């Protein structure tokens, strides 16, 4: 085992983990602003406020670290790291280009990714409980309820792709991809992407952090760097969900000239999906809690089951 090589890959993953969410965040600033007829940040960095999030990061790093007196100190301080690190791990396993252009190929790819992403919830739950704040607790409970409802359609949709490819390894799935998978797996893609959006608690599924009623949910009491880590985990989550949808449903690096420019295709598709995430946020109002639950259990899960049946039948028919 080449330790240096592995270390380099890990550091590269960390760099990607720190850069891509910032790019998505800046895109969100600008895209959301223009969709609302505004300009967004214009000053930081000179040209159209490109350095706004860097400036935000510098500001967050200098801020005081306030832990409420009633809070459970240790858990309160640990929660942001628990919420953040799973996304870093997931990023390692997402293949970018053909021929081993991946942080680290893991055989049980889908499984690894879904399992590790599930740990992130614990961060929100810990934050919600340890803050000693009613709104935080409510936010934590809503987070738990929402994630439990949406994890399932996500699992089922991912299983559908695993069926189509006959493997659970992420590079294996992209290798097995054919263009006609896109129509074949449309329902699965829709379910996976929507459930992923709900897992991230992004609008219109942002009931757990609904700012107009429970302030900021589990993150209400957080300030400074710890708050920044929660935000970073949200944007890293966008990158991860978009990347996973790309890899599982949109064929990852497949596209014209994919031998040399495969990684570019993956990035392009990921960013297109990240744009859709932002676009949905700007367009739709927040779903109510009962609508959220009903959507997951009576729309997404039956759809995912139907997709499973379709995948199974077609797969057996063609083999």
């Amino acid at each position, binding site marked *: *085992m080449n330790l240096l090589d*592995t270390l380099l*890959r*890990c550091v590269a993953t*960390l760099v990607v983990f720190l850069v891509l969410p910032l790019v998505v965040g800046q895109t969100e600033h600008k895209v959301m602003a223009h969709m609302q007829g505004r300009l967004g940040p214009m000053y930081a960095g000179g040209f159209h406020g490109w350095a706004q999030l860097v400036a935000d990061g510098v500001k967050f*790093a200098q801020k*005081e*670290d*306030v*832990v409420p007196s*009633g809070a459970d100190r240790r858990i309160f301080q640990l929660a942001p*790291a628990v919420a*953040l*690190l799973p996304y*870093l791990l997931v990023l*390692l396993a997402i293949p970018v280009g053909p021929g081993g252009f991946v942080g*680290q*190929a*893991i*055989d049980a790819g*889908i*499984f690894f990714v879904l399992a590790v992403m599930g740990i992130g919830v614990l961060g929100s739950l810990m934050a919600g409980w340890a*803050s*000693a*704040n*009613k*709104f*935080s*607790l*409510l936010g934590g*409970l809503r987070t*738990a*309820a929402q994630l*439990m*409802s949406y*994890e*399932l359609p996500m*699992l089922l949709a991912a*299983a559908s792709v*695993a*069926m189509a490819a*006959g*493997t*659970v390894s992420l590079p*294996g799935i992209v290798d097995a991809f054919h263009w006609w998978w896109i129509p074949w797996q449309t329902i699965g893609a829709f379910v996976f992407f929507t459930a992923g959006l709900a897992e991230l608690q992004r609008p219109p599924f942002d009931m757990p952090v609904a700012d107009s009623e429970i*302030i900021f949910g589990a993150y209400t*009491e957080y300030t400074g*760097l710890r708050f920044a880590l929660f935000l970073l985990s949200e944007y890293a989550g966008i990158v991860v969900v978009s990347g996973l949808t790309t890899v599982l449903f949109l064929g990852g690096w497949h596209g014209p000239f994919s031998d040399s420019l495969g990684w570019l295709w993956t990035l392009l598709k990921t960013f297109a999906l990240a744009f859709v995430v932002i676009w949905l946020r700007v367009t739709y109002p927040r779903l109510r809690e*009962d609508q959220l*639950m*009903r959507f997951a259990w*009576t729309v997404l*899960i*039956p759809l995912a*089951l139907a997709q*499973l*049946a379709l995948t*199974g039948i077609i*797969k*057996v028919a063609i083999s």
Partner: protein
Amino acid sequence: MKWQPVAADPAVGSGYFDAYAAVGLLVVVGVVFVAVAFTANRLLRPVVHSPEKLLAYECGVDPVGEGWAHTQIRYYVYAFLYVIFAVDAIYLFPWATVFAAAGYGAATLVEMFVFIGFLAVGLLYAWKKGVLEWT
């Protein structure tokens, strides 16, 4: 990767353990990143004590009571439902990797449909009993 029933060759194992060693290393890298960030924060940040700042935030007024309030218990049923369905969904993955291989085919597909069918019946039951209603 094809699974091969080969035993007792340490060389085969290197790929698997390497992959998870990389994951472990990334955990270390991530923890170091967080530690460095907080050390920098500790050096840069001001510390100004005031008891008001440490109060729980309740829209600007002094907090009432304690940090816990009674909430609806209804959603707990879905937590149960989720755990049961998740256990179910897990079985889809090993099935997904083998069902189209030679020697399984339609029979395995039917087996899985029976399995999913039972759970679909469960979901229908829940639906019918009004568990999946929220208003």
